[in-house]
């Protein structure tokens, strides 16, 4: 991590960038948060470890409007989001200096707690310099250990890969974490009967408290004004009227990001209620792949997006799915 700070200081000092976008420690040792650093001194708060799940690409929308370049650290999966935003003209490539940082899989504090570990004080073994195979956790009930691979964010088990799709330079090593097929979860749901599916999603979505965290964190949900916040439509009030319309918020959101979602998994990570929101997006991605051939949003800025591009070979809506 220290080399990241050193490099950031160099870039600040030589004037390449005017600010740094990274992570700093939060109130607890396991909840670092995105932060802008304007000075070399401020970088003493900088942190990058196994808990830095937050995708910084969306913050580049605002950073693009500011004077000067911003140094941004992007994990491999975040670089897809940045690329997608670039494709949609929401970020300015000229305003970004991108350091692609390695990733050894990001940790899920909820998964650690599910292992029966409570009263956490400190966690060791999550630094980028560590091997990332065992976490040593000291709690008010004594010291515990847990396997790193057992407590990652669910998205890391179906990681798209550890290649950065856009960067100016790359730092730190990565570690392959994919153990599951990307669409395993979706396939399991596809096998359910319509009634079971309805029941499953109604149950999951009934937990929603409409805190809007999923929307606010989502790099694809970057509208200046969300339709759910706008008085120009009647959708905002509607979603508040009854629980079913409330649930539709997530369905509509999934439609709005379909074909643009890079599957960064931030929605599920930030949901305080633990709703597996990424499932909607992943179902869309799977369907798009099946209909129009494999497509990874954000992978290639010049690739034609399947939902907004037409080809004569496109499948007709009335044709059976192969």
């Amino acid at each position, binding site marked *: 991590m220290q080399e990241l700070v050193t490099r950031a200081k160099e870039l600040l000092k030589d004037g390449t960038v005017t600010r740094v976008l990274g992570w700093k420690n939060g109130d607890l040792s396991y909840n670092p948060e995105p932060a802008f650093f304007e000075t070399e001194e401020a970088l003493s708060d900088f942190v990058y470890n196994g808990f830095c799940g937050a995708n910084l690409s969306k913050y580049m929308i605002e950073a693009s409007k500011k004077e000067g370049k911003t140094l941004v650290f992007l994990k491999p999966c975040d670089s897809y989001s940045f690329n997608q935003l670039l494709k949609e003209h929401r970020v300015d490539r000229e305003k970004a200096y991108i350091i692609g940082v390695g990733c050894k899989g990001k940790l899920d504090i909820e998964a650690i707690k599910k292992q029966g570990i409570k009263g956490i004080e400190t966690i060791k073994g999550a630094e980028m310099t560590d091997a990332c195979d065992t976490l040593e956790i000291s709690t008010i009930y004594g010291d515990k250990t847990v396997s790193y691979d057992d407590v990652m964010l669910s998205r890391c088990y179906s990681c798209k890969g550890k290649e950065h799709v856009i960067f100016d330079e790359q730092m730190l090593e990565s570690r392959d974490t994919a153990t599951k097929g990307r669409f395993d979860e979706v396939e399991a749901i596809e096998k359910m009967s319509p009634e079971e599916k309805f029941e499953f999603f109604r149950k999951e979505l009934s937990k929603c408290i409409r805190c809007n965290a999923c929307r606010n964190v989502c790099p694809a949900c970057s509208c200046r004004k969300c339709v759910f916040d706008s008085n120009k*439509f009647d959708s905002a009030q509607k979603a508040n009227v009854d629980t079913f319309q409330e649930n539709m918020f997530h369905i509509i959101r999934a439609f709005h990001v379909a074909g643009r979602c890079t599957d960064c998994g931030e929605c599920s990570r930030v949901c305080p209620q633990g709703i597996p929101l990424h499932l909607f997006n992943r179902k869309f991605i799977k369907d798009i792949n099946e209909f129009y051939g494999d497509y990874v949003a954000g992978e290639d800025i010049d690739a034609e997006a399947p939902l*907004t591009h037409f080809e004569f070979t496109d499948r007709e809506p009335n044709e059976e799915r192969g």
Partner: protein
Amino acid sequence: MQRIGVFVCHCGSNIAATVDVKKVVEMMKKEPGVCHAEDYPYMCSEAGQMKILEAVKEHHLTGVVVCSCSPRMHEATFRKAAERAGLNPYMVEIANIREHCSWIHKDMEEATEKAVILARAAVAKVNLNTPLQAGESRVTKRALVIGGGIAGIQTAIDIADAGYEVDIVEKTPSIGGRMSQLDKTFPTLDCSACILTPKMVEAAAHEKINIYTYSEVDKVTGFVGDFTVDIRKKARSVNSDKCTGCGVCQEKCPSKKSLNEFNRGLNTRSAIYTPFAQAIPNVPVIDRDACIKFKTGKCGVCEKVCQAGAIDYAQQDEIITEKYGAIVVATGFDTIKLDNYDEYAYNQSKDVITSLELERIMNAAGPTKGHLERLSDGKAPKEMVFIQCVGSRCSDNRGKSYCSKICCMYTAKHAMLIRDKYPDVNVTVFYIDVRTPGKNFDEFYRRAVEEYGVNYVKGQVGKVAPLPNGKLLVQGSDLLDNKQILKEADMVVLATAIEPEASVRKIATMLTASIDTNNFLTEAHPKLRPVESPTAGVFLSGVCQGPKDIPETVAQAGAAAVKAIGLLAKDKLTTNPCTAKPDELLCNGCSQCANVCPYGAITYLDKEVNDHGIRETRRIAQVNSALCQGCGACTVTCPSGAMDLQGFSNRQIIAEVDAICR
């Protein structure tokens, strides 16, 4: 708040017999914004329209809902009526309680409930309507005809005779189309070439007609009155200006193994070729896949023998961009592939042929110089069997569900011609039905049976099997005698179903003209607008719209020409004001709308905006309302709802849905 009048039409008994119109009136009086509601037997009549005019004046109405037939029928009528009453015509909405309600329901109570719901939705929409102003667009006085068969030629001649410039785009090296491949035509038995070639010459010589052969339409943009079309003139490898059409190159060409498309692959042609003797233009093309010069770099015989110096191996495809006011599609047909019909042994025996192949065999310029002979051994046949409806009227998925319409007549023609020229040949025709509606058609068929002794058997053929003795065993049933027939035949002719030319799909997509499940282009109205596509400015000529014989094709070609002329005669067109409009403060500048716009109507501009006091330069969508056709693709793509369709705004549509779900 609007002041809305609701007018419920009985349409005689069309609506009133199934919908309680009085009930609809009573219910509508309770709707928000409605201050007047009445019913009348025929709202579209002059007296009915007067009711609207009077009500607008008396109740100071600002919006009108007419519960009647489809807006495609009378929306224009009621908009004009509203305009006469001093309202903006776009303050009128139609609730379709006929096609969408009374005609499809039997139960009065249910139908009435639905009519009320549909009317309620229209009222909810009118509450949010705003006056719209129609603009004007210009008309380019030039027509494009896609396809140079008899349909395209006739349409082009008719449009050109009215004084307008016409371009014909034909993908093969010559105009003439399928008709040029036919030998004789029913029911008069005159020679096809004899009546077609004068038309071809007339088109070629017409000062207003310009023919692009060996060319294809690459791209179409724009809209009615103002289409821009890219035409790809494929490299002929022969300079048309220099070529004299002497034909020496074709004689001397050493590569003579290519299948002759014009003769349906029954014989071969040279690599440099004109498809047939009367081809227009009489300029050959080099088939680069077959040409030795193109394949190996050596040869160049044609170049050496050409006195005119017309051979040009370096010629490239050329793109010509031209503007048109109207486009006529005349892409014609082909026979279906017979891969699904193994039982007829078409792929196993040379002596099983399609009717179109028989046309070439019977033709003096064909592969056998007009002699009826077996292609396997050149022997004259003694027993011939014709099988009708091969792939037509098919109930499973192997063939086509429709009747190809022309087969009964051409089979009678073939049978008659063979019996006339070769009286010793026995001709048997297996048929499901013989369909002969048409002037002098049934008389023609009866002559085949009564005068020429053609043996018609009602029944289908189950199998054709090649025998070791070279003959074909035809196994069929005679439904009238209720017996199985086993017959040895020398030749079997399949009346193969016809289908639209395969390229029509691509062309339809470029023109945004709709096609049906069989790839026939759809009409704007199957009865009342049969030669117009639902896409404004696109007209249909010939078999691309549905199976037709020659006289019907020529008649329809003329009708399509008249519709095109009617359009070209106008100086200005009124544009639809229901176009997309971005809310600049909501626009993210993401370009998704521009990506989906089929008309290229959306561009982006860096523009300074004042968003509640924040001044900044943003990338914002701009709509060219002249290009926008109001399809709404952008509005559903826009994630922030910045793009809206005037007259069909998101709020209006949600209000309608809410009204229906209330």
